[in-house]
């Protein structure tokens, strides 16, 4: 949406296509905050250093520099648009500490930061008269002669396939948490855009880096924000020890996410968990502070875990949270296909490298969303509308018709459940060669089976099941790229931890994994990391 | 059982248009041994309209009512659901927000009053179904209304906001249903029983008000009700006084008698229709009485 606003402001004819209504997008769930060096005592350089270090030196430093330098202006612009970040005592924008940052740099709107920003984006869409095609599910990015021509989408309400013909297309489809059984992501976070882009000829980068958030509720995967630890919450094991003192003696609970997740997983695997969980303890913060700063967290814990954090510690565990990897773009969101751009979580610029810091992802969507919108606009200015290949719509229609026609196949949810289980078990916090290889085989088997699924719902209108089958196809594609990348990367870095290669190896692996499709096969190549200011050092918290 | 003594706040409506509600409440309370003490100083609660006018003024004027009750050493009993909701909400806000209580007391001190946040506001219905008790009420019934199918009309303000009222359950209300049963009659179930009568927009948007009244009455009628009963005089104004207008607006025949809760209880206690002021109704309840 940030991209659409930029282009619409510039007077372009812009449409947003989304499979849920814009205010339902998963950004709405982001709780903790958005980073920017606003205060005089902070600086974009410091923000940059924290981000580079957090990324385990895999982030491209030129992109990170852009993000950190442009952050303050973007935050102020959000306020101009109507957002109101929580205030400090003097009436300025308050900032809270977040994991992996050396300075309290995270602006927030109570614990509804994403909600606040998303709703303001939506307001601006209306203000600038952007067309909305809501509940349209994109099934194809149409590319011919390495130039994007537009998209094909299913209209949920009518079951019809439509084509939207455009000079430029920007993908901003978010993450893929739903590949995993335990995830903080919405039911709609199925990685569609990444798979569609790959199929259309774009490249995916660093897919093996999946962030596991250390504090999610057990059964539902609902997130307890890092803001909770920012406000001072403790993590306890079964013995009641603040176990982070062993893993990150200096910053304790505020170490970066991968470190905390691994610490928890170790505690769990070594038998110091309670029912597969560790405890997030907020009690000492007191009811007043909890209600003021973390009211939604309290609500979520009560409604979804039956625990009131004012009275009891909340059982939590690591869960799939964020995709560091994604569609490879340059610093203006451009992919290797002309007229095709990507921004947000589905893109990989890369600012997060091997591990993202809390509060940097909303920032990425805003900074690079704006840049991609601008670039798409410039691109449209300079190029004619190229034709929309007619047969592509026919092909898409055939593909859908084939799924609908099939009889007596398996149901999609069985395959989805198996995929969730196999990813969680073998491609989670701890990985090794054997597990990953098994995982890859299984995914390929599931892909075969997916070709045979059939539907019970043959109706045209509001066919949820059809959309689930389409999503499952994208999920399988994305899973394959993750596992492939993970299998090949024989080192441990950031969120990617190989028990068989536990050390970081800068000599061989300080490089990005790039996956693309060639003649139906997935191919891998590697690309150097852009290092400008900060030489790789050991990462210690 | 402790003595049931209340500072009695009938509300403006029952002192004029629906006088019969006030009069019959006094009669019935007398019969049941519930003491009602007048509040000669009490001002109007604002019926929600003062809330629109100025929130803190509304709070201060309500605190003035509470201060009088506090002086009397009694909780307030009202028969009007709107008064109940308006006062209970003010009371909740005053109890929850010490800053508001302070500011309000500062204003009250100008007229030599003070409210310390110690009273409760209740409704006749709650006293019957709660502290007085329906078992006891059942024993007092001399003329069970066993031929009547009655639609209980709670209306909105005797149930919501639950955070301020907190006696009955707005999703599964029981008090009026159970009172009807205790009086020997049968309670009719219909969806609109906890919804709005339309009173608040009688003078602002007649069309909405009249249609709403019609929809509620027809809903109960469709479920086989012989008559309605409501704990609230405002609901009564709409359901009874404005029923003819509602019929016209909805182009439907309704002719549904509507009782005040106190009248129904009085009849079951053996008081006469005259004593219950039934002739004051616009839709005569005669046809459903034996």
């Amino acid at each position, binding site marked *: 949406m940030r991209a659409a606003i930029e282009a619409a402001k510039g007077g372009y004819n812009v449409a947003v296509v989304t499979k849920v209504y814009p205010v339902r997008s998963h950004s709405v769930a982001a709780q903790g905050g958005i980073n920017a060096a606003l205060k005089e005592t902070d600086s974009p350089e410091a923000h940059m250093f924290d981000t580079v270090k957090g990324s385990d030196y895999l982030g491209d430093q030129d992109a990170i520099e852009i993000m950190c330098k442009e952050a303050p202006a973007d935050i102020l612009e959000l306020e101009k648009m109507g957002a109101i970040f929580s205030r400090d005592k003097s009436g300025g924008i308050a900032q809270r500490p977040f994991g992996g940052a050396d300075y309290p740099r995270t602006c927030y*709107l109570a614990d509804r930061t994403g*909600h606040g920003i998303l709703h303001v984006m939506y307001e601006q869409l209306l203000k600038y008269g952007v067309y909305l095609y809501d509940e349209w599910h994109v099934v194809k990015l149409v590319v011919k002669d390495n130039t994007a021509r537009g998209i094909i989408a299913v209209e949920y309400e009518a079951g019809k396939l439509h084509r939207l013909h455009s000079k430029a297309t920007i993908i901003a489809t978010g993450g893929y948490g739903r590949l995993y059984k335990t995830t903080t992501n919405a*039911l709609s976070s199925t990685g569609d855009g990444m798979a569609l882009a790959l199929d259309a000829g774009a490249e995916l980068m660093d897919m093996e880096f999946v962030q596991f958030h250390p504090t999610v509720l057990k059964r539902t995967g609902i997130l307890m924000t890092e803001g909770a630890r920012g406000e001072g919450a403790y993590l306890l094991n079964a013995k009641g020890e603040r176990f982070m003192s062993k893993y990150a003696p200096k910053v304790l609970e505020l170490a970066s996410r991968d470190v905390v997740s691994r610490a928890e997983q170790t505690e769990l695997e070594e038998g110091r968990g309670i029912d597969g969980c560790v405890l997030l303890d907020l009690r000492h913060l007191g009811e007043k502070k909890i209600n003021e700063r973390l009211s939604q967290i309290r609500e979520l814990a009560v*409604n979804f875990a039956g625990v009131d954090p004012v009275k009891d510690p909340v059982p939590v565990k690591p869960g799939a949270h964020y995709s560091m990897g994604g569609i490879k773009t340059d610093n203006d969101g451009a992919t290797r296909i002309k007229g095709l751009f990507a921004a947000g979580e589905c893109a990989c610029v890369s600012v997060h490298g091997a591990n993202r810091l809390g509060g940097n992802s909303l920032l990425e969507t805003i900074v690079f969303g704006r840049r991609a919108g601008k670039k798409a606009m410039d691109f449209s200015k300079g190029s004619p509308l190229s034709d929309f290949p007619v047969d592509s719509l026919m092909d898409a229609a055939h593909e859908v018709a084939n799924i609908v026609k099939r009889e007596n196949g398996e149901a999609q949810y069985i395959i989805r459940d198996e995929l969730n289980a196999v990813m969680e078990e073998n491609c989670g916090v701890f990985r090794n060669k054997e597990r990953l290889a098994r995982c890859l085989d299984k995914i390929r088997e599931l892909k075969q089976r997916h070709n045979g699924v059939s539907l*019970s719902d043959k109706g045209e209108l509001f066919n949820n099941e059809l959309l689930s089958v389409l999503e499952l196809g994208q999920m399988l594609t994305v899973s394959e790229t993750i596992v492939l990348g993970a299998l090949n990367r024989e080192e441990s870095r950031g969120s990617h931890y190989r028990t068989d290669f536990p050390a970081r190896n800068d000599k061989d692996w300080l490089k990005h994994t790039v996956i693309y499709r060639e003649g139906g096969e997935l191919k891998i190549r590697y690309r150097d990391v852009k290092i400008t200011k900060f030489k790789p050092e050991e990462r210690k918290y | 059982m402790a003595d049931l003594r209340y500072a009695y706040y009938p509300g403006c409506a029952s002192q004029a248009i629906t006088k019969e509600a006030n009069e019959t409440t006094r009669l019935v309370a007398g019969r049941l041994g519930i003491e009602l003490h007048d509040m000669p100083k009490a001002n109007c609660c604002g019926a929600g309209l003062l809330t629109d006018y100025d929130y803190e003024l509304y709070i201060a004027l309500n605190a003035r009512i509470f201060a009088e009750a506090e002086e009397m050493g009694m909780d307030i009993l009202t028969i009007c659901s709107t008064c109940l909701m308006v006062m209970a909400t003010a009371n909740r806000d005053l109890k929850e927000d010490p800053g508001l209580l302070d500011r309000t007391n500062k204003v009250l001190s100008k007229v030599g009053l003070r409210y310390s946040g110690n009273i409760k506001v209740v409704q006749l219905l709650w006293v019957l179904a709660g502290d007085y008790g329906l078992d006891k009420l059942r024993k007092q019934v001399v003329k069970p209304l066993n031929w009547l199918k009655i639609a209980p009309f709670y209306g909105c*303000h005797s149930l919501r906001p639950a955070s301020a009222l907190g006696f009955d359950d707005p999703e599964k209300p029981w008090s009026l249903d159970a009172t009807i049963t205790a009086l020997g009659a049968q309670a009719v179930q219909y*969806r609109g029983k906890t919804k*709005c009568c339309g009173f608040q927009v009688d003078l602002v948007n007649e069309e909405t008000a009249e*249609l*709403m009244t019609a929809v509620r009455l027809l809903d109960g009628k469709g479920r086989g009700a012989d008559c309605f009963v409501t704990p609230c005089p405002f609901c009564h104004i709409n359901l009874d006084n404005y029923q003819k207008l509602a019929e016209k607006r909805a182009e439907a025949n309704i002719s549904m008698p509507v009782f005040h809760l106190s009248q129904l209880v009085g009849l079951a206690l053996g008081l006469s229709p005259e004593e219950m002021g039934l002739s004051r109704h616009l839709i005569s309840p005669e046809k459903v009485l034996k």
Partner: protein
Amino acid sequence: MKIKFRIRRCSPISKEACDPYAQVFNVEAEEGMTVLEALLKISDEQDPTLAFRKSCRSAICGSCAMNINGFSRLACNTQVIPEYKKMGDMLIEPLSNHRPLKDLVVDFTPFWRKIEKVTPFLTPTKKTSEATVTAEAEAAIDRSQRCIMCGCCNAMCNSLEIDEHFIAPAALAKAWRLVGDVREGHQAKRLEKLSEEHGMWDCVRCVHCTEYCPKGVMPLKQIEMLRSGALKAGILDNPGAKHVEAMADSVKKIGRLDEAAMTFRTLGFLRSLGMIPFGLTMERHGKMPLPHIFPQIEEIEEVRKIYEEFEKALKKKKG
């Protein structure tokens, strides 16, 4: 525990119409299971044709509002077992006051159109855009900011049930979000628009919106703020505002509500006359409110003094 779910479904015939029917599913409910999880389970294992909206499953995206046992709820934050214990077998229906399209999916277009009607974005002037938002200024609109546009309030709104053109609580909460923002530049214009027909004065104060909002937005409270704002801005030429003014005067004068005087003031002389034939029947039953038959309450001076205090404070604030 096996729990019975009765679902009111609807199979679409076209984009405009659908054919309603009810269907029962039995679901094995485990501790902590939400209605949304139960529906997902039904659609996976029993009937994949069941249509409903969902996304975040954490009560923040606003997709999954539906009617559960007669009241608007978010399926994702309603737990099955406690709900069952309270209400018995589950009755799941599409959101009220909205047209079902298929099963539990309703037409949300009217909802968005209402939101759009209140110009749902900040329109500062040069001067107001410089205003600083203090913590206090933020607190004034805090609740209205929490809205997730789920439609639970509109679905329960008694006024909307009768008048589909009513602007309804969600849009009004949004309106206060903007009117109450110190950086907004067109408060008066907004309030004038909201005072038009089908606007904020048509709310019947049924409290349903506040009761059933899953995010504590308290739309009715925001409506009260808007109304106060309009009165203070002098937007008085409409029945709603006149009604309130008449009430405020009546209480100040005699300490009570004077029905007759209020009718007269709210409706104006001619329309009051129009009510006379009806008034005559009321008269026969002794129900015609006559002006000033009320005795004044005792110690009315106290009331007047309280009014004065507020009038003084207001003047000080303005000047």
